[in-house]
């Protein structure tokens, strides 16, 4: 890595939480001296660097300091100590359309927002058509923004931010908004950005997105940096951390109220017959499980390609995935059917959850790796074997 595009150097941020706000002079006179407060350490000596052209994800629970970190990088907040170095222009998507004036038309807002991102009028003129095309708001560009739907608002905001030719793009969970088609478009744009060698910092709750998009990921917890590693490893660290704590935003796990209880745990996962398969071989697992008491558990399996693309995540509430384990060690055998994929290397995550997603008992990231060899001539991802027959046609 040459000179990094973004350097976060020992950044700490402490928020002072006043128990009773004294925002006026009168209150300061009436109650002089100390007002009670507690210091909240939002970031604690975070240090990492992002190379030019790299895409780095930032993951962490709610309140772990992700947004504070991004704000420090964008310059909206100043760190209490330490500093952030940003080389080149930066476009921050902390909130889409944050600088919009709702009384003005979309056109005026594009210019306004562009100016705030440091573009001259002429610069905006040059990319204006691209922005409008990307936002798909051709008919409404001269309408006041206050008449826009929230989707239109977000689209225009994203369109401006990605069309201003930034060296560094900072995205804070904004991809969670907008309809699926627009999200796909945003992701595609992020891919183009990567190909163009731009640097991207990306906060997400979505482990799949981090794995798919990022080259590296940083895990934050309580303001401390837990890991700066490959996406797969980072997601593993993050999920392990979740296992110890109340999971309020469990990545990728069933989206319900989850409690992390160590009633049962996974001891080990084996692929029956070895991890090297041929296409269409049956995939069977043996999973060692220990439970404190007889428990009904559901099993969930995620299969990824090494580049992070998720092939499947099984439903832990399906009747065949639920099993009663005794209150001691036991071995579960799992039949995943024939593994109908073409060649490649795959990773499997295994989760042990309570019925109806009430708890995550255990989650093993990269519990097993599978290599698949394919000897045929088909290409793509799925092994589909057409069986063709001839039927007499109708004579009419």
């Amino acid at each position, binding site marked *: 890595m*040459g*000179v*990094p*595009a973004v350097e976060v150097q020992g950044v700490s941020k402490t*928020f*002072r939480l006043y128990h009773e706000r004294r*925002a*006026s*002079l*009168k209150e*300061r006179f009436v109650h002089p001296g100390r007002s009670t407060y507690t210091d909240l350490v939002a970031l604690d000596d975070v240090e990492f660097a992002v190379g*030019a*052209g790299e895409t780095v994800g930032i993951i962490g629970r709610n309140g772990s300091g992700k947004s504070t970190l991004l*704000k*420090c*990088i*964008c*310059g*909206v*907040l*100043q*760190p*209490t100590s*330490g*500093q*952030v*170095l*940003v*080389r*080149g*222009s*930066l476009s*921050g998507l*902390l*909130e889409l359309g*944050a*600088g919009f*004036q709702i*009384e*003005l038309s979309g056109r*005026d807002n594009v210019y*306004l927002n562009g*100016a*705030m991102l*440091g573009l*001259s*009028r002429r610069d905006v003129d040059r990319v204006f058509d691209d922005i409008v095309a990307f936002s798909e708001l051709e008919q409404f560009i001269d309408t006041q923004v206050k008449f826009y739907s929230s989707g239109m608002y977000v689209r225009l905001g994203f369109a401006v931010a990605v069309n201003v030719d930034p*060296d560094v793009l900072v995205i804070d969970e904004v991809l969670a908004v907008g309809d699926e088609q627009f999200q796909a478009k945003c992701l595609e744009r992020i891919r183009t950005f990567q*190909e*163009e*060698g*731009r640097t991207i910092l990306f906060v997400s709750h979505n482990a799949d997105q981090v794995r798919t998009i990022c080259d590296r990921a940083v895990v934050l917890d309580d303001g401390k940096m837990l890991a700066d590693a490959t996406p797969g490893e980072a997601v593993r660290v993050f999920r392990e951390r979740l296992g110890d704590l109340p999971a309020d935003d469990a990545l990728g796990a069933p989206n319900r109220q989850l409690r992390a209880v160590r009633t049962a745990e996974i001891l080990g996962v084996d692929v029956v017959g070895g991890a090297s398969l041929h296409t269409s071989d049956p995939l069977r697992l043996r999973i060692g499980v220990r439970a404190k008491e007889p428990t009904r558990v559901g099993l969930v399996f995620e299969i990824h390609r090494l*580049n992070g693309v998720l092939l499947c995540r099984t439903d832990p509430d399906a009747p065949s995935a639920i099993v009663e384990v005794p209150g001691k060690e036991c071995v579960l055998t799992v039949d995943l059917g024939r593994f109908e994929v*073409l*060649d*490649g290397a795959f990773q499997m995550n295994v989760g042990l959850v309570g019925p109806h997603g009430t708890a995550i008992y255990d989650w093993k990231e990269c519990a097993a790796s599978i290599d698949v060899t*394919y000897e045929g001539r088909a*290409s*793509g*991802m799925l092994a589909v074997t057409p069986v063709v027959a001839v039927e007499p046609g109708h004579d009419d």
Partner: protein
Amino acid sequence: MTEQSTAPRPQRRPPEQRETRIVSARSSVWRRLETLWSDRELVTHLSRTDIKVKYKNSALGLVWSLVSPLMQLAIYYFVFQVVLKNGVPDFVIFLFAGLMVWNFFQGSITTSTGIIVERSGIVKKVSFPREILPLSAVGAQVVYFVMQLIPMAAFLLIVGVNPDWSLAWLLFPALAALLVMASALSVLFSALNVKARDMKHLVEIAMMAWFWLTPIVYSFEYQLSKQLHNLHLTWLYLANPMTPIVLTFQRVFYPHVQIVNTRTGALETIQPTWPATTYALLDVAVLVVGAALFVGAVSVFGRLEGNFAEEL
């Protein structure tokens, strides 16, 4: 199976050749001023937006910005000329010359004091030099100031008074001093108001007192300055930075230094009998003090800025 495309990436400038921005708790005043200067286009942009938003969907548009100053002019004219009979001929010119300046000054400071709090939405989410917000409020006032030249020209024509064109050049140092002084105080108060929200009310009251301490509705050569002169305290009067600026405007637009009082018929001196250089020197002095104050204000602003996103 094909792996992800490995097309060569188009070359961007390597990071070591790009401009570096540092985000840290302390940034030097000079660096702040430098960024402000490089982002000056944003000031005009935001000023224009302010005005556009303010007069959007109103039939008269910018003309509304004249209504309040003209009403004010009418009231002071009525009180001092008609009721109190000050006997100053062509009083409307004298009065409006000072009021124009004052409206700009007061408008700038009162609107920018609350502006960071009002715009908390973008302050918390978008990164740009925050000083630009108060400065854009000053920028909008520049437009209103220019608008006021229209009624001023009309009054000059109607009353039939010719400004003292030989002194017109004095308007440049006076305007520069006015702009810098108003910007400095705007930046300062906008930052202080985030910390203590009653700054806004305090400023409003202070501006009221300040107005009457400045020779706008009464002339400089009046009781107050005579008494101060006897005590050798004229400098105290001139220490009010608005006084030299207002005096300059009055001197240029209202050409009579001595008048014949229309009520008593007595000969009165209502403007200082200084040469042009004295005016110029005083204005330049205000400009220099204002510039120093501006640097100080930006420094204070920088110190307080770190807490903006938390305090809002």
